[in-house]
């Protein structure tokens, strides 16, 4: 069949047999799998369900700015102390919040509750918690910040604000990998 596959740069693909075509898809699968395995590996190594997060608001300025990338660990044995920068999720909401721990109350049996506040905010986070909730618990915490890289997270923010751009980039990358026949 003529047509699209007659273009010279696609002639490589026309001459591939079933096995080679399968290998093209496998190569694509290997790249996606490598990224996935590295991510899952990080999850296990750090103990955090989301070891890398992007700062979405300016509530922690001047320490963290919108677009900074944070690396988290979630060591459940390490006690939460006032001054720690915790990343947490309010029950029922998706968006992770990056704020500082203000007050901590501990009981002998190990139960801990704490209050948070953004450095750049005028008031504490009780307004953000679920209705009736006055404190956060260990289970709400995704992790605590151990390191950061500035600016890089802006790419993620842009991609989420313009999903079509994200799908276009991913789509083009996918097509490039699938159509590129290696020697």
């Amino acid at each position, binding site marked *: 069949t003529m047509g699209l596959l007659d273009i*010279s*740069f696609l002639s490589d693909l026309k*001459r591939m047999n079933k096995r080679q075509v399968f*290998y093209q898809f496998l190569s694509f699968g*290997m790249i996606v*799998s490598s990224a*996935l*395995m590295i991510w*899952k590996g990080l999850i*296990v190594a750090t103990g955090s369900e989301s070891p890398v997060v992007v700062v979405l608001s300016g509530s922690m300025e001047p320490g963290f700015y919108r677009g900074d990338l944070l690396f988290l660990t979630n060591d459940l044995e390490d006690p939460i102390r006032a001054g720690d920068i915790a990343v947490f999720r309010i029950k029922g909401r998706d968006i992770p919040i990056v704020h500082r721990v203000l007050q901590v109350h501990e009981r002998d049996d190990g139960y801990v509750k704490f209050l948070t506040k953004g450095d750049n905010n005028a008031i504490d986070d009780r307004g953000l918690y679920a209705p009736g909730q006055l404190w956060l618990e260990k289970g709400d915490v995704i992790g605590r910040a151990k390191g950061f890289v500035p600016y890089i997270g802006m790419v993620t923010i842009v991609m989420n604000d313009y999903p079509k751009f994200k799908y276009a980039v991913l789509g083009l990358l996918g097509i490039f990998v699938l159509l590129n026949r290696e020697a």
Partner: protein
Amino acid sequence: MSQENAPIKIDKWDGNALKNALDDAAKKIMNESYGLVESFKLIDGRLALCSMAVSCSLFALLWDFLYPFPASKTVLIICVACYFILTGVISVYLLYFEGGVFYVGLEKDKAGIDPDDKWTLQSSLKKYDDQYCLKITYTGGVSKQTRSVERVCSVTEFFDEEGTLCYDLYEATVKGLKDSLSADKKAK
């Protein structure tokens, strides 16, 4: 795939395309002119390893979806470890077992009794280079001895200005190489 006899035309500046075109033409020559039966064992090995690796990661994805972290911790550790071990194995496999081999053809014994003779083709073409090296190796089915011959040619000998492969010229070169090995065989 259809056995089209339309001339192969590629971008002459694309090193990958050059090597693939020469490799594909050599495969065609070996299959058609000498009636060899192509053996896919080497490629199948590579495909199996890669499929195992991808399955590993898909399994991890599924398990983590069904039993979210931290319940899935053990399974994740196993899958991640297996995946990277398999990736290492694949690298070793590509480097040592396949090592540039793009064709393995079996010459069936006419009587049908003795094991097949094996013809292996390997090639290499460095990035941005024009020196294409083709190596033909013959492994006797009965004798188990190997003999090989290799030849380095410039790709300019086989492609014209438009990037079309001059099949006849290349066919003559490949046949010449193979026949020289066969002649050696008869002499010994």
